[in-house]
């Protein structure tokens, strides 16, 4: 399917953007699903698992959209699984492993807030994406509610809980803006109305939202004003290499098989 209303020049930029969003959702969903069965409270285990499944569901929908756009014979699974580690386009924030509960919550907080600003920047330029994003944003509301509930509690608890959470936020703050970095070909995407605004504007909104939530908790973070664009061809972290090894292991054991 050729994307109706999308000029051929815009396709590479759109594909790259979709891939980075899909990879973000895929990697964080995969990573957070590691908590299934071992979260601190049984009920929280179920909640965390739902959130991880939502992210994977979003990834799946985005990969499917990308598969339609590229129409090169690859399906969503091929796009998700059949690449070398350095061909993944997820944000640097997600190169970090899930760590302990504080790290997971800190990473989720930074990711969900940045992702919300990113999703709010999707315009009507390509209806299939706009429609999907409308649904994703509705599901993401719960993620924001949940991670904010945890941020409030960890910060207010003081002591070890607060210090773990704050340390994790500070450590991840360096890479957090990578989620909302300007994609390659941003100008084309804005011109085509696929993005309703440049990512720099979204990043400003994101930083304000972080201050709005963390300020009352007496936490201030330095979030880089000029996030670097996603490093294409960067050497993947050890954490991600391990994750990649795990999630591709069965598939690589019998290439081309149906599972």
């Amino acid at each position: 399917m050729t994307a109706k209303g999308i000029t051929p020049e815009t396709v590479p930029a759109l594909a790259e953007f979709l891939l980075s969003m899909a990879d973000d959702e895929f990697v964080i969903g995969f990573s957070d699903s590691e908590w299934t069965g071992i979260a601190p409270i049984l009920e929280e285990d179920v909640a965390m698992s739902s959130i991880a499944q939502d992210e994977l569901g979003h990834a799946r929908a985005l990969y499917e959209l990308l598969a339609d756009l590229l129409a090169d014979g690859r399906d969503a699974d091929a796009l998700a699984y059949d690449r070398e580690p350095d061909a993944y386009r997820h944000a640097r924030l997600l190169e970090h492993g899930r760590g302990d509960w504080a790290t997971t919550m800190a990473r989720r907080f930074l990711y969900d807030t940045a992702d919300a600003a990113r999703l709010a920047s999707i315009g009507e330029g390509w209806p299939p994406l706009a429609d999907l994003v409308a649904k994703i944003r509705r599901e993401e509301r719960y993620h924001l509610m949940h991670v904010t509930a945890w941020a409030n509690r960890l910060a207010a608890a003081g002591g070890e809980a607060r210090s773990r959470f704050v340390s994790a936020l500070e450590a991840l703050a360096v890479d957090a803006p990578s989620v909302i970095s300007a994609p390659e070909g941003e100008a084309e995407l804005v011109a085509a109305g696929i993005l309703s605004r440049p990512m720099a504007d979204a990043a400003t909104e994101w930083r304000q939202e972080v201050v709005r939530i963390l300020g009352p908790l007496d936490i201030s973070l330095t979030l880089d004003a000029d996030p670097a664009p996603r490093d294409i061809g960067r050497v993947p972290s050890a954490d991600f290499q391990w994750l990649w090894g795990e999630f591709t292991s069965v598939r690589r054991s019998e290439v081309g098989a149906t599972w």
Partner: protein
Amino acid sequence: MTDPVALDPVLSPQDRSARPWNDDLDHDERFALFEAHVLAGGKIEPNDWMPDEYRTAVLRFVEMHANSELMGVLPEREWIMRAPTLKRKLALTAKVQDEVGHAQLLYRVAEDLGKSREAMYDDLLAGKTKFHNVFHYPTRTWADIGIIAWLVDAAAIVAQQALRDSSYGPYARTMQKICWEESVHIMHGRDVVVTMMTGTDSQRAMVQEALDRWWGPLMQMHGPRSDRAKDRDLHWRIKAKTSEELRQEFLTIYVPRLLELGLVIPDPALAFDDEAGEWRYTDPDWAELRTVVTNHGPMSEERLEFRRVNRAATTWVREAILAEKRAVA
């Protein structure tokens, strides 16, 4: 038709409070009235008076069930990471999530009988209480995931369906919800197996090899034949069927479904005896079962240790969010 998702229908006061044995009578009279009610098919609710024997029996039964759901998460968990397609990844995560949910439901039932969740975790991790044999074994390949989701869950659901009419109300209702959710797991498991059996030669071989390893534990899962007359759990209607009845039911449904895929069941003696009207099979290794459920199985200690370590590592989280609640009335 009972809403499969409802757990506790709102019972009228007559159902809950007007129990003849809830009045102040002497113990023997209460016991007799209680027993008559149960044997006539009546239900027991958390606020009812119960003889110690009944309360202890239900608690032990439910606690082992809850423990099994909690430990049962671990064999499959590691394969969530390795699921080879997005759909399988989502399905397996959802399945394991359900097992956690079942643990939650069952620990809740046990908690309302008077034992705290923390005390139950303590006993499980100290090896004082048990969990089902099948969760003490390793999962070696993706085929194991299909076999477990299909056959272990099937064997479990055969038992759980028989528990839907348990005399203890909260447990019976929880079983109805659990059975409804488990049916999806079995479909997922069977789909994984059937997909591989229509795949490459090495996929088919992987499935057969997994079945070869899991058949023994599956046959042991429902337990040795017991004497119906001596089984107190049957007497109190906590459960309704004997181990052997459950095993026979499992074989009747699932042997044909395995054979139709071209799989070989690794028991040459397995055959249906038309005259006797039951399955004949090589006697399961009951010594193995005893060894395994007393936490000497291949993965018992490793999994319990994993849980201990994980519990310790997350203690700070529980303490943090419960800190304000420490003041007790």
